[in-house]
């Protein structure tokens, strides 16, 4: 039949699917009792309508780039004016493909912040057209066709937030350090983990339930300095997309969201250097062609220098303390012929904190991604990635006779093959496989002979996470679009190692030892993904989505702030994969020539196999850490409202979320549902940016949210001469509400062809509200006959100034 050749072409020798199926369906667990060939046959049946209509059409395809820098543009809209609804969005590498019956067409390309371009196309055969867009021509942009700017209305994707660096550059920020993670917290459904913190919660998920990717590599600890800075240097970032639960099938591994961060490729036309000098950190960015128009590189680095001030101190005990972080992003890419493109990108970051020579900790992420784009033909785009990711920490303690080191890491080696097939203007398929080898070293203690501790090496944990996925973007009619997909994941826990079984008190009752490479346990999960949009009018639509996600790596954390020593543990014989099912529904409407964008989304999420730890859990260097956790479930639901003015002299947005997040553990609150720590009823953000003439840009943002759920004492008593607090139910109290106004101003310097600079001023928490970071309880040292509650607030009136330059 006519399909077979297509598939042979798609999947040479059925290699990938066969590999995927072998991995996915272990012999002892045949849940799909089909032979690979049969399965492919069924997949082909699914694809039949797409293939049949693909006859007698020609394809126009190519890459969309920035005219000045040659950077590929992600998410640009491409459409043929003459064919209603024939529109696609350029992929992560700027590639697009559209097909139509032979004829003369006008191809229109538009991208936010760029002048749209239209090109006459005579489609008599498959045609390749690469397009460059001009970032300079804003005036043009508003005059030219605005079609394609309403992708938020027409595409079936739900719960997606995109940020471009140009959008965040004028916003006021803490310490003058632009931070994509903090800007994300101003969007609906995304909550800050605390004042000034880059950690975030998405729709009731925990911070470890966000998959954070930097050029496809997992970033296990996305923060510096206990969460006050993110690992993302905004100079190095091109595109940021956050999927809040309705995640496309190509992503997996975390329950609540995917944050996909893409690095700049580097200018392939001319050399540039840019940077910034701020009060606590400086940045430098260098980019340029290796061979003009064919290859380029970019290196971005930054370092904080709070420790320089410590060094200035005359006090010898202070000036020996260290406190800094730095990070380096580097990327190079080369085009090989017309059909191949190779990218290498890497990230290296390190934090260093120390008390003289008595105590020190350093920690950081390293990632590396090698990618190969191959255009098989004008309809089929392939990307093959080899990815490395590692997070580690080292602690050094020197105290008296005690010389101790504690080290731990998590390391991934990841292979990913992703194929995008543009069958025609109404059908796009995406499929691939994903294999990750996870190795975690939960802890190695080294200790000198005289120290109070024994050297100890906890056994490494090995696991293989293999997935295959398929999704289909289908425009059923001009009004109805559907995206459905399936992701199948097997998490294989491997030897070598000893695996324990625990009784209910957490005592190991049985131990089984496995040799290296032996399979200890497999968890197989199918994750269906579905979303649909129905256009009510040209400017409004309703959407529905259902998503299942699973998670096999779990972060154990027992403090309120992000801690570099929090432990990741893989699923095991004791710890089952976390599961989430989310349904969401929304209404989308654009106004005023797509200048305003409005959305309203409801979501309900059901969570299973959620993890909490026992009271007093020992999480550090504990071989039996799994005996310290308890398992329960959760639910989260909410309503998100978002209105954004996208362009004009004044732009900005208002975002509001009404939500509830609850957990249930049989060990806590007598097994009834209780509010999760991050349960906040109201979340409001207002962001405004005003271009006051040619030189000044003014900005402000206001944030309000209800207080977290917390556990406070409901009495006190005396134990061993000390005051102890009596707790009754978990999380029945509320922190005071949080609110804050930040203002900023950017002064544009004289702009010449050779040099561009600006000054950025901002004040964080303008009216100096003491937002409680934490509240603690103690016996009053001045009056031991009473106890008191102490509130800690961190940042009030924090001014900052940054000088940015580019040449």
């Amino acid at each position, binding site marked *: 039949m006519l399909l077979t050749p297509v598939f042979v072409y798609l999947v040479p020798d059925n290699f990938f699917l066969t590999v995927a199926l072998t991995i996915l369906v272990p012999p002892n667990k045949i849940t799909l009792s089909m032979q690979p060939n049969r399965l492919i046959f069924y997949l082909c049946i699914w694809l039949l309508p797409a293939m049949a209509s693909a006859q007698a059409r020609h394809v126009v395809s190519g890459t969309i780039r920035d005219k000045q820098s040659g950077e590929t543009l992600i998410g640009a809209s491409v459409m043929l004016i003459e064919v209603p609804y024939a529109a696609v969005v350029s992929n992560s590498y700027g590639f697009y493909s559209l097909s139509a019956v032979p004829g003369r067409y006008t191809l229109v390309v538009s991208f936010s912040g760029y002048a749209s371009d239209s090109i006459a196309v005579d489609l008599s055969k498959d045609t390749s057209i690469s397009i460059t867009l001009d970032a300079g021509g804003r005036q043009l942009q508003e005059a030219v066709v605005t079609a394609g700017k309403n992708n938020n209305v027409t595409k079936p994707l739900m719960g997606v937030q995109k940020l471009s660096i140009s959008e965040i550059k004028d916003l006021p920020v803490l310490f003058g350090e632009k931070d994509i993670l903090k800007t994300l917290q101003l969007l609906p459904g995304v909550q800050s983990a605390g004042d000034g913190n880059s950690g975030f919660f998405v729709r009731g998920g925990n911070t470890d339930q966000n998959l954070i990717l930097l050029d496809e590599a997992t970033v296990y600890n996305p923060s510096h300095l206990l969460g006050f800075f993110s690992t993302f240097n905004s100079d190095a970032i091109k595109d940021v997309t956050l999927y809040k639960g309705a995640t496309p099938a190509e992503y997996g591994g975390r329950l609540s969201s995917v944050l996909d961060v893409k690095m700049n490729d580097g200018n392939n036309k001319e050399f540039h250097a840019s940077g910034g000098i701020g009060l606590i950190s400086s940045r430098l960015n260098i980019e340029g062609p290796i061979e003009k128009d064919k290859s380029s590189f970019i290196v971005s680095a930054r370092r904080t220098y709070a420790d320089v001030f410590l060094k200035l101190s005359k006090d010898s005990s202070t000036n020996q303390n260290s406190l800094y972080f730095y990070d380096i992003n580097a990327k190079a890419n080369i085009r090989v012929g017309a059909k191949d493109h190779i990218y290498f990108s890497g990230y290296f970051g390190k934090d260093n904190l120390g008390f003289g020579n008595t105590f020190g900790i350093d920690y950081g992420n390293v990632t590396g991604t090698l990618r190969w784009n191959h255009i098989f033909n004008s309809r089929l785009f392939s990307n093959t990635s080899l990815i490395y990711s590692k997070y580690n920490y080292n602690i050094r303690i020197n105290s008296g006779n005690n010389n101790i080191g504690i080290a731990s890491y998590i390391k991934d080696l990841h292979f990913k093959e992703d194929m995008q097939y543009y069958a025609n203007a109404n059908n796009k398929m995406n499929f691939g496989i994903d294999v990750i080898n996870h190795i975690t070293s939960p802890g190695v203690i080294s200790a000198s002979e005289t120290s109070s501790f024994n050297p100890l090496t906890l056994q490494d944990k090995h696991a293989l996470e293999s997935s295959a996925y398929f999704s289909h973007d289908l425009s059923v009619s001009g009004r109805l679009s559907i995206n459905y997909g399936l992701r199948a994941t097997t998490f294989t826990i491997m030897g070598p190692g000893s695996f324990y079984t625990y009784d209910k008190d957490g005592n190991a009752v049985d131990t089984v030892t496995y040799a290296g490479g032996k399979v200890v346990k497999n968890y197989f999960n199918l994750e269906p993904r579905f979303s649909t949009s129905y256009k009510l009018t040209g400017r409004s639509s309703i959407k529905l989505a259902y998503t299942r996600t699973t998670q096999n790596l779990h972060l154990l954390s027992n403090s309120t702030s992000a801690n570099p020593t929090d432990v990741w543990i893989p699923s095991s014989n004791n710890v089952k994969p976390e599961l989430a099912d989310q349904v969401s529904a929304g209404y989308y409407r654009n106004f005023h020539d797509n200048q305003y964008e409005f959305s309203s989304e409801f979501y309900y999420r059901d969570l299973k196999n959620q993890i909490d730890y026992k009271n007093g859990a020992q999480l550090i260097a504990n071989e039996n850490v799994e005996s310290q956790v308890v398992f329960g479930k959760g639910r989260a639901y909410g309503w998100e409202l978002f209105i954004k003015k996208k362009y004009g002299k004044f732009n900005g947005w208002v975002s509001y979320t009404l939500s509830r997040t609850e957990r249930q553990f049989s060990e806590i609150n007598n097994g009834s549902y209780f509010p999760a720590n991050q349960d906040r009823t109201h979340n409001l953000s207002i962001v405004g940016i005003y271009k006051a003439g040619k030189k000044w840009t003014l900005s402000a943002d206001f944030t309000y949210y209800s207080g977290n759920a917390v556990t406070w004492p409901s009495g006190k008593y005396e134990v061993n001469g000390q005051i102890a607090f009596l707790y009754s139910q978990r999380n029945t109290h509320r922190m005071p509400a949080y609110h804050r106004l930040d203002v900023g101003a950017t002064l544009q310097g004289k702009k010449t062809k050779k040099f561009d600079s600006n000054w950025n001023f901002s004040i964080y928490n303008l009216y100096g509200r003491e937002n409680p970071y934490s509240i603690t309880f103690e016996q009053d040292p001045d009056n031991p006959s009473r106890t008191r509650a102490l*509130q800690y607030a961190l940042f009030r009136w924090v001014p900052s100034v940054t000088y940015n330059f580019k040449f």
Partner: protein
Amino acid sequence: MRPILLIFASICLFSCKKEVNLNLDDAGPHIVIQGEITDAAGPYSVKINQSVSFNSENSFPAVSGASIKISDNEGHTDSLTETSPGVYSTQLLQGKPGNTYTMTVKALDSLYTAVSTMPFPVNFDSITFRQNSPFGNDRITAVPNFQDPAGVKNFYLFNEYLNGLMVTKDIFVFDDRLSDGKYITRGLRNSDETLHESDSLEIQMYCIDEPIFNYFNQLDESGGRGGAFNAAASPANPVSNISSGALGYFSAHTVRSRKTKVHIE
């Protein structure tokens, strides 16, 4: 992880701390029982009182008229007598390492029971001192020196008596999970500047059993001590070894004690 948190807390130039009034619940009075048997000479006491609301004074109403018995696995049983309101004393019982003790308390119309086994004692060699200087504050830390016996689980609790008064701000518990058989020189790090040169310091070292270690370890974690960054995410009451929901503990432990003047070598 306290040191890291401390470093950060110290550089938060903009941080501020203040006392606040909160609208806290009152769980009502709960019975608190504290019983101890040691290897020192008796009598030993059991204290019973009640919890109060957070905003009350730190005086805890005694529970009088309880009937308390403590027995050991050698067949001795002692009935305690109330020597002052809420304080009950043994008459004959002598604590002995290795023995298991059972306490039964009848008070306020309820019956409470608890069991504890007295571990074998560990010699307490000496107290030394160490000086740490986090950000210029010279802080003196006392270091108990002792040999942990190899091959057995040991759990320790330390009390500091400074110029005759117990230091009540800090809880010092320690287990040999990562230190089995080592010569231990781990400092008792106070949460603020507590010790000064030429103060008189007595340290009592208890060898406690595992449930009591867990109790004090959890108590320490849920105490909310340690400032802005160190609050436990979800504090809870420590798990007591006393039945029927009583707060407090019943511990059979050994006591070794050393006394010295605070000094820097």
